[in-house]
Each structure stands twice: as structure tokens, then as C-alpha cells.
């Protein structure tokens, strides 16, 4: 079990190797990363992994370029911790109708 911390809020939660950082966040009942499709397709849960090691599953190139990946900018629903992680939330929800 590893500790995942969100840089902005200092909120942290437990995550095991077999669950994505986003799934662990949702399971913990805490907030801080937007929850979208949870399948690597919609891009709203994009984070920068400031520190720590992780493995990843396939993510949509519409939201994560090769450069992003190299820069550790990935989707929280597709990363699995291999150490404690520090995450910076960079995804944003784009509203379709301006209000």
C-alpha cells in the first residue's frame, strides 16, 4: 500500500499497486481530481506526477501526447503506484455552455 498526495491541497489517500490513483481517491471518499470516464478516454483527470514511480495503462493521444508522457503528465485513472506519489492536478473540466 502506498500513499498518494495531492500537491495543492495536501490531501492524501492510500492506494495499492492494483488500483489506479483515481479509483483509490474515489474509494477514499476524498476529492481533488476530477472524475470522468475512468478509462483513459476523456482526459479530465490529468495530473503531473511530481514525484514517485508508477506503471500505466493505455491513454487517449487526444489528451496525453508522447511528450506529456515523457514529462510525467498522465491520466490519474491510468496510473498504478510503485512508490508513494505526489500529484499536481492539471486536468480541467471544459464547460460546453458558458454560464
Amino acid at each position: 500500500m502506498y500513499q498518494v498526495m495531492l500537491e495543492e491541497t495536501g490531501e492524501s489517500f492510500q492506494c495499492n499497486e492494483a488500483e489506479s490513483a483515481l479509483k483509490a481517491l474515489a474509494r477514499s471518499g476524498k476529492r481533488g481530481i476530477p472524475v470522468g470516464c475512468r478509462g483513459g478516454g476523456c482526459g479530465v483527470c490529468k495530473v503531473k506526477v511530481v514525484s514517485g514511480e508508477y506503471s500505466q495503462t493505455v491513454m487517449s493521444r487526444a489528451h496525453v501526447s508522447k511528450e506529456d508522457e515523457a514529462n510525467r503528465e498522465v491520466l490519474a485513472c491510468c496510473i498504478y503506484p510503485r512508490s508513494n506519489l505526489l500529484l499536481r492536478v492539471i486536468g480541467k473540466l471544459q464547460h460546453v455552455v458558458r454560464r
Partner: protein
Amino acid sequence: MALTGVLRPGHAQIRVLDMAAATKFYGDVLGLVETGRDKQGRVYYKCWDERDHNSLVLRQADQAGLDFFAFKVLDKATLEKFDADLKAYGLKTERIPAGDMLETGERVRFELPSGHLIELYAEKTQVGNGLPNLNPPPWDLKNSERGIAPVRMDHCLMYGPNIDQNKKIFMEVLGFYLVERVFMPKGGPAGEAAIWLSCGHKSHDVAFVVHEQPGKLHHVSFWLNSWEKTLRAGDIMSMNEVPIDIGPTRHGITRGETIYAFDPSGNRFETFAGGYQPYPDWIPTDWEFESLGPGLDYPQRKLHESFLTVLT
């Protein structure tokens, strides 16, 4: 015969990030019937009670989303007429030869002002629903209870700009009628934020929501016969840890009983039941944007943030 022109939604081609995960989901969990794989590696499915060869096609790609959405038209003469009418309206059309998709005839493809590719076709091999044509039972043990097992691919909701222009094309060229709509928020520019269009007797065959980015998919919907089947679908989703977006609940708009959830690539799908059966002469039902909460989720009256933000 009353139903002519565009008969119904025919097929959706969806991009998936991992074909093995996608086929496990669409085949085993949603419980569609796999009907073929082509040389490009595309995988074809139909719902158990559909007669035609395919209604959902999966293509492996590096981005999720919708390649195109198609409607079946009455016959080849109707297809030719629609092609000519679309051109006369000022749209560019393209012919996709028969056989490009398995068991599917020639398709006429055009791009909507919202950035979506729409296709029309007249011919697709009728493989049947697995029941005998003579003295059939009402369902079978092989496919009609396996997984969620929807009855048909029902409709598609797409997000993009210029939906007022889409509406004109569907109503003036393709013979659809407006069933329900949501107006833009008060105090801003006038117009429609969302429209539900029907080509027959269903509450909708296609719908659009206005969005800055073109060509986005909100969901492909699959029909179930009852609210109880919708609850059963929710149980099967949870057993398989399918991420649910909204529901089970009931839409105010269309009155349909619904679950929104996501496939393993993040493409939203819907399991949908109920609603009502409109006629083309009915006055459309109107919603204020400020009432989109109950329009989307009538019991909770909640404008779920993901409805307007999470797309592929």
C-alpha cells in the same frame, strides 16, 4: 406504409484504445453478439434482437471517440434521393463502396456542421435474431439473457458546434422531427443548447448538445425493455466494476429510464428503457437550461457536472 425515408439508426463505429479489453466488455458484459472481424481488425456486433448483421463496430485507435454514426434508409432509390438532396442542400457527400464494412452495402457519408460523420445506407445482410422465423419463442437462452443483453442499438448523443445547422439538415433533408429541446441559458445568446430528433415513433434517434469542440461523442445508447432490466444492467455493471456515470435513474427529457456508464476506453454508453412514443405532428417539448438538472436526472434534479464535461 408510414415508415419511409430514414428507417432507424443503423451502426456506430467506436474507437477503442485496447481491443482485447473492449471485446471482453462489449461481448461478455454488455452482452452483444459478435458477428464478425474484418481484415482491418474491426470487430462487429449486433444486439440480440436486431435482424441486421451489425450495429456496433469497434476500431482500435490511439484516441477514443466516434468514427461515424449511420442510419438505414428504406431502399437504394431512397439512398440515391438522399444523396442528391444532401448535395442540393450544399453538403459534400462521399460514397463508401459496398463491402468496406462486412455484410453492408454502399454508404453515403457526409460531415455535419458539428464535425460528425453521418452515413446512410440501404443494404445490410439480415442475419436474423437467432430465433426461428416460424412459430418463434419470445427470447432464447443463448443471447437474450447473456450479460446486459440490450434489444437494439437505439440512438446516439453527439456534442459539437452549429447544432442549429444540424437540425435543419435532419429536419429539412432527412425528414426527422424535433421531439424535445433545451434552450440556451437566460441572459446569453438565444437558441437551442440541445435537441432530440426522431425519424419514426421513438423519443429520439439522434440528439445533439452544443459544444465548442467538434465531433465529440457523448454516448451510444442501447435499448432495454423495462426499468427492471435497467436495474439488472446496473447490477451487472457493478459486478464487473464498470464505471457508472449517472443512474440508474429517469431522465425528465424523453422520460427514459437510464444508466450512463463508460466502456474500458472511456466511451460513454447508455442502457435505456421506457420513455414515450411521439408523433411527427406533436409540438416539441421545451426545457429551460435552468431546468436541465431535472431534465437529465428527474428524481435527483441534479445537473451532473460530467454531463457537460466528460466526452470522447
